[in-house]
């Protein structure tokens, strides 16, 4: 076997590496062969030392395995340093090999050409490197698309499963099936606590003498009505299957005798709660979302806290109104109170008060926002305190 034959066979066994890498291996062997020839070895001896082309190729491939730079990038190859620059012969004079006693000095100019040729050769392999990068990019995109498709498929499948389970729970009816139940209180009610979630809750004062609650029930949601020690608690629909059948839930109606004067606490986190005209002791209204509609309410004190959502009051007669708004709006159309305390950090409060403006002593603490009132001393003991850091307060008088 001649060296050329050996080299060709080696080349054939290195088809799994890039063109550039294969070329560098062949150049490396050409150099090794030439060095041995100059050292006095015969072609046969050298080929014998190199071993079988297949074995040599396997050792090279095995050695290159796990090479993180792909093992086959042109930058790491012959004729290039780590920055990919071709370094040729500027320092040639300092290179003295043990087998080159007569060639200690190398003319720098004479080596430019091989270097340039090398550069040309490297340029020729740039397209294959680009091609490899392109392939990698394509592969990444393919993986990304597969992952996204898998996620979407999982979501879609989940939604389908969820829909069928929801349907199964509701006896395979798309429209939520519900029935009405009624609860009649057995004792005198001194406190009414309402928590609005979804759907609507109505409080309707009437001329009767019993407190009772009419509420819907379904497999998809449940309304809680509890009576304990004179406290009636009504919690709006809680879902057993979120997002399923929560639309068009019928209102829960609390029928409250006009004579039953009790404390009223309403907390609305969603949905809508409405309270008709009625008389109460202390009232606390807290709205974090959704809406609260109050009719003409007569009570001792009214405490309204809004962090979001809207509170709309037709009438409010009490000794003290406290309103705290961090967001959302409060609108009281007709109010009468001796003491009004308003704190607004955002949102707005609109209030129409009974009496004349001169009757009220007004205290305004404003860091930002707007208030239509200015501090003043009143002719009566009635006070209005406004603390506003943002938003707006508008108080008018009848």
């Amino acid at each position, binding site marked *: 076997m001649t060296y050329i034959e050996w080299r060709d066979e080696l080349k054939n066994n290195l088809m799994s590496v890039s063109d550039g890498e294969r070329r560098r291996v062949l150049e490396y062997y050409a150099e090794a062969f030439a*060095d041995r020839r100059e050292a006095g070895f015969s072609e046969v001896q050298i080929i014998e030392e190199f071993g079988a082309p297949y074995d040599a190729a396997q050792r*090279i491939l095995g*050695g290159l395995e796990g090479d993180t730079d792909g093992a086959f990038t042109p930058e790491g190859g012959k004729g290039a340093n780590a920055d990919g620059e071709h370094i040729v012969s500027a320092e040639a004079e300092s290179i003295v*090999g043990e087998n080159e006693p007569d060639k200690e000095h190398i003319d720098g100019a004479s080596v430019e050409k091989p270097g340039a040729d090398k550069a040309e050769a490297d340029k020729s392999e740039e397209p294959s490197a680009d091609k490899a990068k392109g392939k990698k990019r394509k592969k990444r995109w393919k993986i990304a698309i597969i992952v996204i498709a898998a996620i979407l498929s999982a979501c879609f499948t989940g939604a389908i499963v969820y829909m069928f389970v929801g349907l199964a729970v509701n006896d395979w009816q798309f429209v939520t099936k519900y029935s009405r139940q009624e609860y009649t209180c057995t004792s005198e009610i001194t406190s009414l606590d309402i928590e609005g979630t979804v759907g609507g809750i109505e409080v309707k004062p009437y001329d009767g003498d019993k407190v009772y609650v009419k509420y819907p029930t379904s497999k998809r949601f449940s309304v809680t009505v509890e009576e304990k020690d004179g406290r009636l608690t009504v919690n709006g629909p809680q879902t057993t299957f979120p997002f399923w059948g929560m639309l068009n839930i019928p209102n829960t109606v609390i029928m409250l005798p006009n004579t039953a004067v009790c404390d009223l606490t309403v907390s609305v986190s969603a949905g809508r709660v409405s309270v008709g005209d009625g008389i109460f002791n202390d009232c606390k209204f807290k709205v974090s979302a959704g809406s609260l509609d109050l009719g003409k309410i007569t009570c001792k004190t009214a405490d309204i806290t809004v962090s979001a959502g809207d509170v709309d009051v037709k009438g409010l007669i009490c000794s003290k109104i406290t309103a705290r708004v961090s967001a959302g709006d409060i609108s009281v159309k007709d109010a009468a109170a001796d003491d009004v305390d308003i704190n607004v950090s955002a949102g707005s409060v609109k209030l129409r008060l009974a009496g004349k403006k001169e009757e009220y002593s007004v205290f305004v603490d404003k860091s930002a926002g707007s208030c239509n009132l200015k501090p003043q001393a009143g002719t009566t003991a009635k006070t209005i305190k406004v603390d506003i850091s943002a938003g707006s307060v508008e108080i008018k008088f009848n």
Partner: protein
Amino acid sequence: MYCIVLFIVGYVMDAQLKKGILEVCVLHAISRGESYGYKIISELNGIIEMSESTLYPILKRLESGGFISARSVEYNGRLRRYYRITPSGTARLKSGEGDLKEIIDVYNRLFGGKV
């Protein structure tokens, strides 16, 4: 002594360890001065068995790891690739020597003799 240990471990150690030792050997050969493939193999002849097909991937790995730098120089009308050790290569060599000393210690403890 150093050579004997290298000779022993060259035969008995697993491929990964052998690869590391071979790298240290090549770095050691290059640390003596700028060198090229055939010269490296000639210097290591008698110390550890190494063929061209073994040396090529080692040189490539050391170069891409920044432990050696390489340049091509014309010699006798052809190009010859010369390798030079870098500061990180020197550090790697020092660390490799430490590893080899540990191997010697392990050998001595195991077999009770002095290598």
